[in-house]
């Protein structure tokens, strides 16, 4: 049994970047708040090309039209579809509540392929 090659991992990363591009933020009751992809200006891949760690970043502000204040964020999930589907990665974090227009939450969801 041998580990797959570096090229194979890069192919997997390319696939993930092209498909697992929807990031969903959920509240502390695990209810989805919003699910966005890099098609939205608030979401972007922020890793460098060829990096072993893929980084999908979402930045939400209290002034965003789709945020109803106060809003608590407690977890992040990765999908490959805009709606429905099954989450491929779910990570929780210390709840953060946006209370004013100036409040801002940045979530960087990393996917290590393979584990660093």
């Amino acid at each position, binding site marked *: 049994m041998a*580990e797959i090659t570096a090229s194979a991992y890069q192919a997997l990363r390319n696939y993930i970047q092209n498909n697992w591009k929807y990031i969903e933020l959920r509240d502390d009751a695990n209810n989805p708040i919003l699910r966005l992809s890099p098609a939205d200006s608030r979401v972007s891949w922020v890793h460098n090309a060829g990096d072993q760690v893929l980084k999908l970043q979402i930045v939400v502000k209290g002034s965003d039209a789709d945020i109803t204040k106060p809003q608590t964020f407690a977890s992040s999930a990765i999908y490959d579809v805009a709606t429905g589907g099954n989450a491929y990665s779910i990570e929780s974090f210390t709840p953060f509540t946006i209370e*004013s227009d100036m409040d801002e939450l940045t979530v960087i969801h990393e996917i*290590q392929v393979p584990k660093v």
Partner: protein
Amino acid sequence: MRGAGTQENPYIIETPADLQAIQNNLSAYYELANDIDMTGVTWTPIAPDSTNRFTGTIDGKGHKILNFTINDTTKDQQAFIVWTNAGATFKNIGFENAYVKTRSYSSIFVARPYAAVFENCYVQGRVEGTSYNAGFSYTSSNATYRNCFVDVTVNGSYAGAFVSVDNQKTVFEQCYSNANVPFIQKPNTNSGYQTTYSYCYFNKTKYNGTNKNGLNGLTDTQMKQQSSFAGWDFENVWYMPENDYPKLRVFLGIKQQTINLQSYINPIQSNITKTNKSTKQIQSFTDNLQSLTSSKRIKKYLLSTYTLPIETSVQKSNRTVRSITQHVTSYINPIGSIVERKTKTINRLLSYVDSIQSNVNVITPIRNKSVNAYVSVIENPSIVLYLDNNSDLNIIENHSTIQFEDNLSDTYAIENPSTVEVI
């Protein structure tokens, strides 16, 4: 006061008394736990002696000192802190509704900062005195003001918004003044000691000062527009509210958080189950068969050549009249026997001639009588066997030849020239 005064465990300031207690340790680390309301507090300036200056750090953590007041016109050089030396650091501290009224040389924050650093701080209030008063500092040397602003009203001669007099090398970075007096009353212009500005602005509607390199005046309207503040960080440091002057984010209670989440995929191992399914064309062949035939030749040669007895007979009959001895000679020429055999095998061939006997009888008269001798046919009793060759039938030819040998022996007539005399 909670804390140990170290960088890792600073003193925690929660009350005006805690704030005043800074004078007991001028080199410690301090943090504000909350806004400090100084209403009704008579303040005694910290480090009033130039030989015992403040060198510690105060981090306001975005909290404010409210209603700070000094009102004593009998004194000069009054402020929250008077003297500092290298190492003195002030950050994230704001004075709101401060009021300082002295005779001269006074300010709200630090009167005589030397080598101090002010970062993310602001002063809002009023300073009154005869002369050389300012919002932040009466006079500064080698001090740095970074991301700070003043929103003050200062009176008296030689009044300044930030500083009244720069003794040397004071640096301003991303700062603005919103005051009725110059950004700095007496900047240092001496070579090597000049005051320097970087992306600094003043409200020229309130005070129409002169632009300098890195210091530019903006109208009151421009002062409320983010686009007017080139070189500023409005993402992390500053915030531009609507129809207001720029504010420091650290004081607005703006919550900003960056969360890093990590998911991972374990290394993938490949495992191969290999099933071989092959069809092979099998070719079999037989080399030329070689048979080895042992030829056993059994030959029985019975060669016999013989010559039948050759007889010669001479007879002599006489009547003895007289007795005489006659010599009768009879002879037979040599008889030869020849056996030939054509073969590579050398066999023992035996050729022989039986004893030849001659008997002479005298028959009288006998004269010129022929004596015949004959030779019988020589038998050839040889036997040839044929052996079958089952792999490759070859006919073995028997090349043996049998020769009939004539008996060339000649028998000559034996003459008997003998004469018989009757005696």
